[in-house]
């Protein structure tokens, strides 16, 4: 087993400022400080002299346009889940370690991705492209990976002895031990894990408690632990609220790009695609514009999804400013990369019939797609039905029209000439559907050829029943 730990120090900031463009200075407040002080700032704010620990008033004095926000725990959890979804393409066992870490079991993926350096390269490259600052470390047990990611970014240890050597050098304050235990150990003069590991177990347990001892065991891989596996969700929903109301479609593009990217990550994790998603642009609490974005075939590429969403949003007219945007995708069909036959040239998307059938029914309903069956019955209305395409052997060779009217209707004007007939059809007295008709093939003044009937024995009351189309 090789556990990789990804640590996202900027997660809290990114979650709280989902819709903030990069060049706008922003600052995140300290979690539960009595005084309102700045905890994290972005580079734009840093450039203007805003620093960690300043009070909001001081920061505002340096930079009047500073956007200040408190932490948004729900958004952080959402963003972490989004990142878990993205990482799911690299490992089948992902675990969330809130508030800002993800654990991946990488051992099983090493062969597929051609070793750790290739795998970590892909991870780092992908996360950099997504714009997430991160630290990565890997170790044989998850707790150690978690601790190492905080201290030694980029370190990877495969062997337990090597892992222990690295852990020895970790300062107690960064060891992940409960704050109370760290305090106690520091007051006894211990500084690093090495010194703590050297202590006899019963004495140590007495000082830091069972919990602290268990953590140290987990660090060294002495205690087995169950890591809860993250499961990709079945539908996708995301919402971004704006501080100010946004006028027009242009400012919506930045959050839209983020949302479609998140959707694409989630699809990649599920190995699925999306054929229809809805954008909901909220104007006030009760009024909103809903824009469905549908596509010909299930897609999962971020750029393509964004392109589609952008064109739809630009085309729609927004009657009021937007204050929040939501994206919903309920149906996530399986994504099929086009199948390729080794010898035959591929035609089109290379779908097979069942996939096409499924796609058509999904959009238009179950009854939209039908097949016809012929039935051995003389009555025209009963000589066919919707069915599976089965046919009795062809018995009747008299001409029949390709088009049958759904219901016979009076023929006006009456036929110009009779081309063939009459053919009497008299049947059905036994099942209540009896009819007695004389069918003719007739021509109209426009040169159309029709199938029409008169009640048996009668000379007027022409009824049109079909076209020889």
């Amino acid at each position, binding site marked *: 087993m090789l556990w990789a730990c990804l640590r996202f120090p900027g997660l809290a900031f990114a979650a709280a400022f989902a819709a903030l463009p990069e060049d706008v200075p922003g600052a995140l407040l300290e979690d539960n400080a009595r005084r309102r002080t700045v905890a994290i700032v972005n580079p734009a704010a840093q450039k203007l002299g805003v620093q960690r620990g300043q009070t909001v008033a001081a920061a505002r004095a340096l930079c009047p346009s500073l956007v200040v926000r408190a932490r948004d725990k729900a958004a952080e959890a959402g963003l972490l889940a989004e990142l878990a979804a993205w990482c799911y393409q690299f490992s089948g066992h992902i675990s969330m370690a809130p508030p800002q870490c993800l654990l991946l079991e990488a051992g099983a993926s090493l062969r597929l991705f051609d070793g750790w350096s290739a795998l970590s390269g892909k991870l780092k490259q992908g996360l950099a492209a997504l714009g997430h600052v991160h630290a990565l470390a890997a170790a044989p047990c998850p707790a150690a990976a978690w601790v190492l990611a905080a201290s030694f970014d980029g370190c990877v240890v495969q062997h337990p002895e090597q892992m222990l050597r690295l852990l020895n050098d970790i300062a107690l304050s960064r060891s992940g031990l409960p704050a109370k235990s760290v305090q106690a150990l520091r007051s006894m003069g211990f500084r690093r894990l090495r010194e703590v590991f050297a202590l006899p177990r019963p004495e140590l347990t007495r000082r830091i408690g069972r919990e602290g001892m268990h953590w140290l065991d987990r660090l060294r891989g002495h205690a087995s632990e169950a890591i809860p596996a993250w499961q990709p969700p079945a539908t996708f929903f995301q919402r971004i609220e704006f501080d100010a109301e946004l006028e027009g479609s242009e400012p919506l593009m930045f959050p839209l790009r983020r949302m479609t990217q998140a959707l694409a990550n989630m699809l990649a994790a599920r190995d699925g695609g999306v054929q229809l998603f809805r954008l909901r642009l909220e104007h006030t609490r009760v009024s909103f514009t809903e824009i469905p974005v549908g596509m010909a075939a299930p897609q999962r590429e971020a750029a393509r999804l964004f392109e589609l969403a952008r064109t739809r949003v630009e085309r729609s007219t927004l009657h009021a400013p937007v204050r929040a945007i939501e994206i919903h995708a309920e149906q996530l069909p399986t994504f099929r990369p086009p199948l390729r036959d080794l010898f035959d040239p591929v035609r089109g998307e290379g779908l097979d019939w069942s996939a096409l059938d499924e796609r058509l029914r999904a959009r238009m309903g179950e009854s939209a797609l039908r097949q016809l069956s012929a*039935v051995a019955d003389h009555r*025209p209305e009963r000589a*066919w039905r919707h069915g599976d395409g089965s046919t009795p052997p062809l018995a009747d060779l008299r001409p029949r029209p390709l088009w049958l009217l759904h219901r016979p209707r009076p023929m006006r004007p009456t036929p110009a000439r009779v081309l063939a007939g009459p053919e009497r059809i008299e049947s059905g007295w036994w099942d209540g559907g009896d009819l007695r008709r004389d069918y003719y093939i007739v021509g109209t003044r426009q040169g159309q050829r029709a199938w029409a009937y008169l009640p048996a024995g009668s000379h007027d009351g022409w009824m049109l029943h079909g076209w020889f189309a």
Partner: protein
Amino acid sequence: MSAIAAEVQQSIATPSLAQVLEHPGIWRRSSQHQPTVRAISTGMPSLDARLPGGGWPLGALSEILFENDGLGELELLMPTLAAMTREHRRVIFVAPPYQPYAPALQAAGVDLRFLHEIHATPTEAAWSMEQCLRSGCCAAVVGWLPDIDYRSLRRLQLAAETGDACAVLYRSAVHAAQTSPAALRLKVSNSNEATYVDVIKSRGLMQGVTPPMRMRA
């Protein structure tokens, strides 16, 4: 956007000049060579003779413009559809205006197991027709879309090319004067008790004006 632009550019840039000149829409006076149009026989020798490639063009959109119901406009297509279904290739009817009558189809030689019928509203009809064409698993898709616009026609033409399928669209003859991206346009009309089939546009048509084909006496 740039990715799409690059893709388009690439698809334009890749073929060599010789390949470009092979396009059935291009004919040079100096060459004796007839541009090739891939086609499937209509089953009617006199109609085949009037069409470049000798039949319905494959991987392209054909339009059949008819004056009225019941002139034999669907009969034109039946031999080809029958041949396709007998080879176990699928044929789709999209939004037919009346009930396709199974006994008559059977009599025309169609294997009903490979014929499907799609009921749809006009917008859904255009979408489903495009889907079927694009999928690559349908031999022919026949649609009745009375109010289709130029853009959708173009989409259908592209979809037919993508899926290498035979697309046939039935429309009213009043649209004959409008421009259309279809590779083949036929007009079915009636005068003096006889039905005539007129080729009003055909990609790769070499000889001049041919007299209309007389179909039903």
